[in-house]
């Protein structure tokens, strides 16, 4: 049997309780429905989930950029690793990550029991969800997909590939990005079409066999060298490197990428030293060298490696 309780008789209650009950009646105050509070709570958690998901997307793109930006070749484009980092860092995604972290913290703080936890716990747990979520997304190749699709749909957004292209499609600084077209009979001069649709005659005397194979593979490649004739578009190649890595790149591959680049630059450096010695012994100081080999020893990247 349910317990019966006495209703409060206003005559025996306090003045305040009478006043409150009168106000409740006269202002027709009713308790707000439970589902409204449930909805508010759901909205707060949804906003938290939204910020964590957007945070995870930003982490996925950050991981993709971290994996695929060609740190291994930084001497080819920049004087220091720091200046390279400053140029390739995806500031927009770092900003999104920070903002979403703050938004997630704000939402979590406003959940029913959010106040019980200190700021650092709320912040770290939200960021951790984003980081783990971002790693999972990147594992399935979401970083690349988001980066490229956003660049296609939003002209203002620059993907990693576009920013790499901006750094490497600079013939005046000895860098080209493009695809092999044809080669001459002696197989020493290749015709190459860059990303600006200009056709170049690439001199390959100083290239290794593997570089030539890579150049003639038909894939997009990066060519490091020097422009010998800007008007006729003659280019002296010193190294050929794959354009972008596949979706998943291992640490081993990144190390190999770096090793190949360093080896190539040191080869040019040593060759340059040998040729300069030969020049001093055989030719007059005022006379220019009668051969094209050795141009690669003067590359900015080679000089940067000396120091």
């Amino acid at each position, binding site marked *: 049997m349910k317990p019966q*309780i006495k209703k409060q008789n206003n005559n025996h209650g306090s003045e305040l*309780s009478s006043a409150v009950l009168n106000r409740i*009646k006269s202002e027709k105050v009713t308790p707000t429905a439970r589902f409204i509070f449930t909805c508010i709570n759901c909205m707060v958690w949804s906003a938290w989930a939204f910020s964590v998901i957007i945070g995870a997307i930003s982490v996925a793109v950050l991981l993709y950029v971290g994996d695929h930006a060609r740190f291994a070749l930084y001497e080819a484009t920049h004087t220091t690793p720091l200046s390279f980092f400053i140029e390739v860092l995806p500031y927009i995604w770092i900003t999104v990550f920070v903002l979403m972290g703050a938004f997630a913290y704000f939402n979590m703080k406003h959940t029913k029991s959010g106040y*019980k936890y200190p700021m650092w716990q709320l912040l770290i747990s939200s960021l951790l969800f984003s980081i783990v979520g971002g790693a999972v997304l990147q594992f399935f190749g979401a970083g690349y997909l988001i980066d490229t699709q956003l660049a296609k749909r939003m002209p203002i957004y620059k993907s990693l590939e576009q920013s790499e292209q901006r750094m490497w499609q600079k013939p005046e600084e000895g860098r080209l990005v493009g695809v092999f077209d044809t080669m001459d009979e002696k197989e020493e001069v290749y015709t190459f079409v860059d990303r600006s649709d200009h056709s170049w005659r690439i001199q390959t005397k100083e290239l290794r066999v593997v570089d030539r194979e890579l150049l003639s593979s038909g894939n997009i490649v990066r060519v490091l060298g020097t422009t010998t004739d800007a008007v006729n578009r003659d280019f002296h190649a010193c190294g050929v490197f794959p354009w972008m890595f596949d979706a998943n790149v291992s640490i081993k591959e990144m190390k190999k990428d770096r090793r190949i680049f360093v080896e190539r630059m040191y080869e040019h450096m040593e060759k340059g030293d040998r040729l300069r010695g030969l020049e001093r012994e055989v030719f007059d100081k005022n006379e220019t060298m009668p051969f094209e080999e050795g141009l690669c020893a003067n590359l900015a990247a080679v000089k940067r490696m000396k120091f």
Partner: protein
Amino acid sequence: MEKDFHDMNDEEIVSMALRDQAFFSHIVLRYEDKLSRYIMRLGVRNAEDRQDTLQDIFIKIYKNLNSFDTSLSFSSWVYRIAHNEAISAYRKKNVRPEGHLIDEGNERVAREMSTCTGAEKKFDEKVNAEEIARVLEKVDDKYKSVIILRFFEHKEYEEISDILKIPIGSVGTLIHRGKKQIKDKIDTKQLHV
């Protein structure tokens, strides 16, 4: 079987009040004295303002009865609403508290403050109730609320955490710093005297 409301806990009365508003008066009766003292300590000194604020508090409690989270104690939830309303009322009126903050049980409060942490013996010895009353008015608001809840309303750390919506760790820190500020202010005062 007839059960008197004195034998019922808050949660039972809440569920009754949700079905029949008349039962809400039991909640009012149960909390009006406690909340009146509390909001007065927070700075709502004028009797009329206090009555108005109390009415607003109970109307708000009634409106939000369905949002009461049973993982909290009802008392903490009521104090939370009262705290927020009192602060708003205080800000609206922008009235500085006047007179003595502690009007009853001064000696007991002083004793409690001094025995709360044995480590601060120097502080304990110097503390006297009247000084606390005078000095507490000059203590930063962030410390004042926790000090009032802890030493005047005798709330546990967890309850203070629920009322002020701050982590328990922060409650401890604020109490410690609040006590230190009171001690510093008392020391400064004595120096000037």
